[in-house]
């Protein structure tokens, strides 16, 4: 991990772009291709890239595990909660039309909020999975050095 200057420089340049693209996919998902699943995976890919280049421990400082766990639950709650909100507003479960004054606006708000929930959960769950696997066994950064001695 000492002589990866190129990797570090390139990823510092790439990671913000990855996040930006993730947000684009997230919020463009209502009228174009995209949505929460894809955006969540892209967003988590940015953080995983950070973890691969700068080490898992420093990535965990950016997003600690307990926060990820809360985020994963929060996303599901946003999704299910939107359903409950539409129930309370007099519609059926997940009937977005009642969320705003007009049907179209309601559908719009509904899908944006739902996809946000999906995006948060997918992002958090992908990272939890990555960290869970990365934690087990040898630390990733030492692989090259140890293989010679085995």
């Amino acid at each position, binding site marked *: 991990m000492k002589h990866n200057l190129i990797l570090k420089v390139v990823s510092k340049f790439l990671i913000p772009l990855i996040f930006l693209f993730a947000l684009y996919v997230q919020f463009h998902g209502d009228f*174009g*291709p995209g949505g929460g*699943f894809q955006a969540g995976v892209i967003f988590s890919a940015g953080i995983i890239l950070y973890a691969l280049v700068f080490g898992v421990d420093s990535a965990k400082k950016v997003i600690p595990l307990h926060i990820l766990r809360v985020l994963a639950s929060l996303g599901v709650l946003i999704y299910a909660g939107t359903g409950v909100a539409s129930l309370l507003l007099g519609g059926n479960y997940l009937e977005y039309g009642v969320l705003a004054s007009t049907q179209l606006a309601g559908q719009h708000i509904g899908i944006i909020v739902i996809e946000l929930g999906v995006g948060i959960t*997918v992002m958090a769950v992908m990272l939890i*999975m990555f960290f*869970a*696997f990365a934690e*087990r066994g040898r630390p990733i950064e030492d692989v090259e050095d140890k293989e010679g001695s085995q």
Partner: protein
Amino acid sequence: MDLIIGHYNYWLVIIIMMAGFYTVISRGNLVKKIAGLNIFQVSVFMLYISIGNVKDGAVPIIEKGVTLYSNPLPHVLILTAIVVGVATTALGLALVVRIKEAYGTIEEDEIHNQDHSL
């Protein structure tokens, strides 16, 4: 001839499906089994996406001057199935990691021997 070339995507589906299924059944290595399971599931994704294709249909995004679209529903269904597949793979591999820690091996017959020699 048309049966083979005209339906080439379905033939591919069948070949991939059987390759994956055979891997799951025949391999003793637990990771290879998961890989086989993934290949098996991918064939189903291909099957659904083939179903959704409409001849000469455009990408299902509303655009001016386009009247014929492909069917987007199978894509949505398969998006769900892909997520399920990711979850299954993650859980399966996590179990393999735990099995490796508990038994020291990921070969099915060695695990079997350990359980029955006790």
